[in-house]
């Protein structure tokens, strides 16, 4: 169970870790705590699986990558083989089976258009793939995965 201190710590850490010589001491100061307690709790919270990742989260577009959301209609009996084939591509970062007419949805990030075309052609040709739509975004209104813990 998360203590109230853990929740406060995770809430602060989700909004930002300072880029400074002693970032955890800076965090501790905000929480009226000290560096050794913050580090000790973070190690435990990481080990127990509460924290997915600590570090920088990059804007893929500003690093020169292009991304889109691709939806597939996959025939009965082919879901696993198609999903596993998609998972092999490092740029396919999220891949979910979903309710609805299009039943498999994945995101694809690639550093160059040629590679992207090649990957999509390969996936469209997989046995069991009935249809594919490629949904490209022009504007991102929000990317902020943050869970306020109470």
């Amino acid at each position, binding site marked *: 169970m998360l203590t109230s201190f853990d929740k406060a710590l995770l809430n602060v*850490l989700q909004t930002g870790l300072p880029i400074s010589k002693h970032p955890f001491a800076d965090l501790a100061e905000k929480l009226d705590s000290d560096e050794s307690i913050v580090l000790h709790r973070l190690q435990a919270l990481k080990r127990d699986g509460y924290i997915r990742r600590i570090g920088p989260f990059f804007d893929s577009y500003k690093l020169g990558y292009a991304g889109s959301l691709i939806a597939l209609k996959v025939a009965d009996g082919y879901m696993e083989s198609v999903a596993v084939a998609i998972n092999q591509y490092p740029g396919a970062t999220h891949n979910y089976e979903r309710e609805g007419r299009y039943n498999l949805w994945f995101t694809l990030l690639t550093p160059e258009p040629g590679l992207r075309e090649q990957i999509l052609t390969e996936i469209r040709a997989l046995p069991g793939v009935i249809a594919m739509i490629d949904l490209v975004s022009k504007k991102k*209104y929000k990317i902020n995965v943050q869970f306020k813990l109470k």
Partner: protein
Amino acid sequence: MDDLDKKIIRVMQDDFPLVCEPYKEIAGHIGITEEELIGRLRRYKENGQIRKMGAVLQHREVGFSSNVLCAWIVEPERMDEVATELAKNPSVSHCYDRNTMPDWPYNIYTMIHAHSRAECNAIVDGLAKENNLSEKAMLFSIKEWKKTSMRYFCEEDMHK
């Protein structure tokens, strides 16, 4: 971006050291000074290449066990206004526009996180009402086949 930038970005995607001076430790692995690393990271943050320095939680472990990708049909002239409103809701983690297809007319996508499916439904109903939206597709996930963080500038490793 130079080779050192790419190297820094590659290394920063590894586990962040939970020690008193983490940037000093990382700089040591890269073979540069702590000052150089901190200077470059601050630059990436300022120019938006780093959109957030911090933590992302495992949402199931912290109690957000339900999520839905909700796709909306918004009149083109209202897209900016409506998407900006949808994005303000704290339960919405992602809000993007996307192109439509002949059999798929949805143009705004929101990812919504909540404690239960019922709560997801209530949030979506609220968003629909507040923004006067009638057409939507709620794409609840059935199975997570993959969820990873992108490894940038590792293409060479991938082909080894």
